[in-house]
Structures are given as C-alpha cells and as structure tokens.
C-alpha cells in the first residue's frame, strides 16, 4: 500500500531557529513529491520536486529530494512566527492517479 510518512509530527522552536522537516514515501511508479503549507485554511503550494539531488529554494525555505533513499527534507532557516503551520508533503505517481498525503508536521514558532 502506498504511504507517505512525515517526522516529526510536531515541533516547537523559537524565532531564529533553523528546522528540518522530513518526508519519506513508498509510492508505486513515483514521479514527484510536493510540499504544502497549511495554516487555518486550505494547503498552499510550496515546492514540487521531481529530480533527485536538486535543491529548490524560495526565500528562507529550501527542499531537496533523494529518490534513492525515498525521502525529502524541507528546511526553514531563521524561522519566524509566521512560519507556524502544518507542513504537508504529498507524493504523486507517473500517471497522476495516485496522490498520497502524509499526516503533516505541525510547526510552532515561538517569539
């Protein structure tokens, strides 16, 4: 059965800290992994990773995919209180017919 696992499930840090969120997957005919940020509403898209070893960056956020070890990490540097949210990763297969979300990591950034 296809699955996506995230760790930690919950994380509390202080402003300025750097955090690393983990996502591992087992998806048949895997194609891409996506990261989303979910606050008190629907998830918003952060990154899509298809190629292994190529880092994607957006401001203080960066992410990379390892297709050999079947995992991805999301890094957030110099965290701010506005980064507090649930971070979801999702895996999609080659045919676009299997879109599996992980349980999410709840990040709380304290002032």
């Amino acid at each position, binding site marked *: 059965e296809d699955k*996506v696992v*995230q760790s930690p499930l919950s994380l509390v840090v202080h402003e300025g800290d750097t955090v690393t969120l983990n996502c591992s997957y087992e998806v048949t005919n895997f194609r*891409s992994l*996506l990261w989303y940020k979910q606050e008190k*509403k*629907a*998830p*918003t*898209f952060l990154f*899509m990773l298809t190629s292994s070893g190529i880092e994607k960056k957006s401001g203080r956020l960066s992410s990379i995919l390892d297709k050999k070890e079947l995992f991805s990490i999301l890094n957030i540097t110099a965290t701010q209180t506005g980064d507090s949210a649930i971070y*979801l990763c*999702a895996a*999609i297969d080659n*045919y*676009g*017919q*299997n*879109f*599996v*979300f*992980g*349980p*999410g990591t709840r990040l709380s950034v304290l002032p």
Partner: protein
Amino acid sequence: EAGVAQSPRYKIIEKRQSVAFWCNPISGHATLYWYQQILGQGPKLLIQFQNNGVVDDSQLPKDRFSAERLKGVDSTLKIQPAKLEDSAVYLCASSPYYNEQFFGPGTRLTVL
C-alpha cells in the same frame, strides 16, 4: 486569476441526514480532486476527475458518498446518510496537469 470556490464554508447536520458540497475549479483546469481532511491528519483523496470522467475513486465510501462533475466544470460531493465519523473538512482542488494543485477554502462539516 480567481481561485477554487467552495460552498458552503460550514455545515452542521445530524447523523443520518444528507448533505451536499459544491466546488467550482479554476477556469481551464481539467483535473478536479475532492479530499477529506480529518482533524490532525493529512488530506485523504476521495475522488479525482479528469474533465467529467472519474480517474480514481478507490477511497470513496460508495455506500454513502457520491460525486459528479457535470460538463467537466463544477462538481458536487454528496453524503447520504451522514455518520458521526464524516465530520471533517472537505477540500476541493483543481490542477491544469497532474502536478501542482490549487485548493479551495474547504467546507467544514460537523455531524452531530
């Protein structure tokens, strides 16, 4: 560009009642998804449409849930009859390809 629209935003019903949710995807997006997100969990795919055809409904509880996407645009998701465990946020998302998804605001359903 207008986003994905959903209605209603909130719904409270009693168990065994029926409820319907509506979704209007971003114009031109061929793929539409319905997800169920229970508090504390990631979204679970219920059904995926490509235009007006069903691509994947393997996790849709078909004894009580149904969905349609007439004319390949708007979609409705119905629950009949509702159970307590159906309390969740129902998210609709659309995508121009099988890649990035754009989510609507969701409908929060409470079944009493």
